[in-house]
Structures are given as C-alpha cells and as structure tokens.
C-alpha cells in the first residue's frame, strides 16, 4: 500500500466465534458465526456485504463456498491464499476494492474447526517434492531450523525463547476469551516435551477451533457506524520463498521489507506504536518479527523479550490478547492480529486494555516464514 491509500478505509466491525472448541460445528459454521458477529458489531446485515475476502483450509475454492454458505452474491471477491498472513493481506486488497468503487462493504472472514475435527495443525498443502522425502514435520521443523540458526548466529537462548511463551501467557491470563490461562513459567516451557529441537511443545502455538471477521468501508462513511472507526494507515506485503530450504537467510524474514513499507505508507515509525500484534505461531516468530519490523536490532530480539519486557507492564506490549501461543490458533492466526489491534484502538479489548491507543501494528506470517504482511492501524486522531 502506498501513501495514496493512507486512511482511505476503516474497520467498522470485528467479530469472532468458536474460540477453543466448537464441538459439532464445521469450519464454515464457525466462519458464518464470525461473519454475523462482525456485521452485528458494525450494525450491518449480510445483505449489505458486496465484497468478500476469505480463505480456509477446507477445500480449493473456499471464498466461493463461503459466499454460497452465507447466501450472498458479492461483486468483488478475493481468496488469495498466502497462509496465515492472508487476512492481513486482504486489508490491502479490500482497501483497493473499496477505494476503486468495486465494493462498498468488505467482509474479511475465516473459520476453522481443526481442534475438534483433527486435534492437530492441519496444513493446506503437502510438503514440496524435494522436501517431503525427508519427512519434515510441518510447520514445526521449519521454525525449529530457523530458531537453531538464530541461536547459532546470535547466541539466542532457549530461555529467551521460553520468555516469549511466558509473556503471551501473562497477557492471556487477563483475557477471558483466551484458551490457555493457567500459570506458565520459563521452567515449564523448558521442561515441556521437546517436539523439534530446540522447540518444546510450549514453544508452539495452540491448536484450537475459531474464526474471525472484519467489516471494512471507505473512510468517508466510517463515522456513521456504532463503533469508533479504525483506519488502515498503511499495509504492505513481501514474499520471499515457499520451501524453508529456499529461505535465503534463516534469521531474516521478508517482514523487514513489509514492515518498512507499511511504516512508510503510514508515516509513522516503530517507536510510535503502542500495541504490537504479531503472528506468534512459535516463540522464534516473535523474536524474528520484533527485529525485522524495527523494534530492536537484528540479533537482539532474544535480549529484547527477556524477563517480561514484552509482558504486561513491560517496555512494549506484544500480543496483548495472549497471541497464538495462548489465546487462539485455529491454523491461520493472521486475522486475530488485526482484530486485537483494532480492539485496542477502539478501547474494547477483551483482556488488558491499554490506555489511549492511537496506533497499533498487526503482522501476519504465512507458509514457513514465507509470506509477511504488516498493517499499521490508527484511530481518528492519526488521520
């Protein structure tokens, strides 16, 4: 997104459904409940939706299935699949479609029942042909190898990785919507079952059900809705690879480029951001993205997250809902980074509500550190 699109669109509704376990519901049921929740939040009806932005893990034409299920006939549709970053990516395409007059009410929506349906992380595609014979356990093996390399190059420790999970849990403990709210110590993370060295099961995200939805309109209409509008000030994407063996530098993600362009489009810098919502599928993600997005220097992410510095009361609020590590992770987490960022700005975050948030960052990750999408959201005061 360029500065031409700064503040042209706004989020006027957010909703979610099926957090944790949605027994007896299909992924599309959870998707539909999320859509209704978000439209209700915006004071709109399904019949108002004329732009649909959706992907699911279920089949090859999820956006078409979603439109059929919802009983709508959208005039603009986007089902671009960039993994868990897809929904942050749709902020850009929805803004373009709204600004171009291709639709008036954009619904971004997702649903999953992967916890009750299978009990494990489901990937939408098989490992690529030149990786599959070695049986990498995806996605864990890819992130484990990135973590191993980060530890090798920068001296990042397992204790520092653990502190990411501990911080996420500390936020989740205040969030009644979070799935895991029990106590979690650094020792608990380090002593948990090792699943892919150097990552234990507590370095890995939850496997839950859940869906989320976002309603967007053009900025000129945004003040006519029940909730305070949350403006998309800048958003940008960058894709670096598909297969982890093709990642050029295992310690640097394309978030460096997506972040720089999103900040440039919004006209703000990392030090202006009051709430940071990152795609923390694994503890190494948070460290990589804090570095690549400019919140600390490359290699210093481990020290940056140490000892509660990203936990409640720390120097930087990161993943204020508890993140994918403790709040919700139904396979693709990206939409929840946007929802939490928007709620922090609106002042109705379900857990710890930070004071006077005008600027928040939502960052999506897809594939195996492959697709990076950064969005900067702002209140009316930031226009």
């Amino acid at each position: 997104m360029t500065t031409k699109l700064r503040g042209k669109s706004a989020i006027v509704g957010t909703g979610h459904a099926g957090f944790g376990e949605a027994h007896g519901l299909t992924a599309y049921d959870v998707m539909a409940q999320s859509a209704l929740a978000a439209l209700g939040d915006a004071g709109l009806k399904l019949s108002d939706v004329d732009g649909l932005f959706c992907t699911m893990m279920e089949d090859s034409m999820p956006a078409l299935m979603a439109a059929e299920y919802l009983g709508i006939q959208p005039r603009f549709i986007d089902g671009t699949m960039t993994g868990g970053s897809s929904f942050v990516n749709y902020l850009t395409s929805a803004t373009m479609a709204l600004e171009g007059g291709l639709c008036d009410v954009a619904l971004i929506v997702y649903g999953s029942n992967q916890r009750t349906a299978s009990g494990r992380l489901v990937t939408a595609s098989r490992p690529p042909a030149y990786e599959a014979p070695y049986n990498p356990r995806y996605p864990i093996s890819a992130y484990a190898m990135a973590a191993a390399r980060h530890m090798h190059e920068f001296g990042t420790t397992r204790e520092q990785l653990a502190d990411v999970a501990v911080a996420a849990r500390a936020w989740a403990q205040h969030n009644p919507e979070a799935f895991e709210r029990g106590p979690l110590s650094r020792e608990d993370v380090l002593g948990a079952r090792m699943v892919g060295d150097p990552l234990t099961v507590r370095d890995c995200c939850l496997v839950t059900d859940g869906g989320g939805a976002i309603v967007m309109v053009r900025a000129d209409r945004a003040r006519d809705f029940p909730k305070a509008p949350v403006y998309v000030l800048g958003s940008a994407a960058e894709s670096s690879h598909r297969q982890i063996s093709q990642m050029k530098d295992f310690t640097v993600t394309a978030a460096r480029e997506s972040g720089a362009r999103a900040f440039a489009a919004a006209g703000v810098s990392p030090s202006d951001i009051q709430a940071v919502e990152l795609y923390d599928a694994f503890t190494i993600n948070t460290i990589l993205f804090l570095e690549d997005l400019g919140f600390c220097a490359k290699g210093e992410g481990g020290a940056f997250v140490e000892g509660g510095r990203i936990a409640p009361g720390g120097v930087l609020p990161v993943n204020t809902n508890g993140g994918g590590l403790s709040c919700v992770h139904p396979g693709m987490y990206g939409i929840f980074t946007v929802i939490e960022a928007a709620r922090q700005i609106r002042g109705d975050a379900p857990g710890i509500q930070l004071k006077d948030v005008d600027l928040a960052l939502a960052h999506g990750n897809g594939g195996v550190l492959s697709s990076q999408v950064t969005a900067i959201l702002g209140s009316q005061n930031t226009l």
Partner: protein
Amino acid sequence: MDHLRRMPVPDATGPDQIFQRALTNGEIVLPRCDDCGAYHFFPRVLCPHCHGTAISWHPASGKGRVHTTTVVRQKPERGGDYNVCVVELEEGVRMMSRVEGIAPGDIVIDMAVTAFVGEAEGQPAVLFKPVEV
C-alpha cells in the same frame, strides 16, 4: 510435483526427470546456468538468478556443510527421533536432507558433510554423512 519426482521416465528431458534419473543411477547432478554460471536447486527450466534458460547438468562435488538442523522427536514405537536438516553444498545451493551415521542430536550447524545417494521413503534420495576427520 510429487508424482514427477517419483517416476523417472527414460529419455525424458524435464529437469525433475534428469535429476531423478541420475539419482536412480547412483549419481548426484546439479543444474547450472550457462549464462551466469550459478548453480541452483531445486531443478527448474530457468535460472532463478539471471532468468536465463540455458541450463546444463554437472556432477555434484558432494561437499557440504550443515546450514541448520533439527531433531524431529518421535516415540520409539513410531520409529524414534530423526534428523531433518538443510545442507549448503560447495556449489552454493541448499537442499533439505538428513545426516546419517551419527545420532540426530549430535548433528550441529557448520558440520562438514558428504553427499551420497541413499534411500528416503523407498526412493533414491540425496543423503549426507559426516566427513571423517
């Protein structure tokens, strides 16, 4: 893509077929661009560096270093722990593989390794063993 690498067809000229047929014959060959001289992996019809299309095939030196590594933890009754790693070859390309002949937890980043044609999932595959010192 998967079915292509599984069934090398005699005389077929596609990049996957050339690579797989060589493996079946116990050889590791790598594609190199005649225009810019850089190797690449996985096999493809163009050079990802300069986008040239004149690709020739050369025997791999087999010399590599572990770029990064993990142990996939698995219960003994399901086959036990095993290694998955990414090796960088002397030619400058990287491939996923595993190192054999050493406990999975003893494989470390920067370890020197040598390629050989072994078997993975019942098919010929590039594997590595530690360089004897």
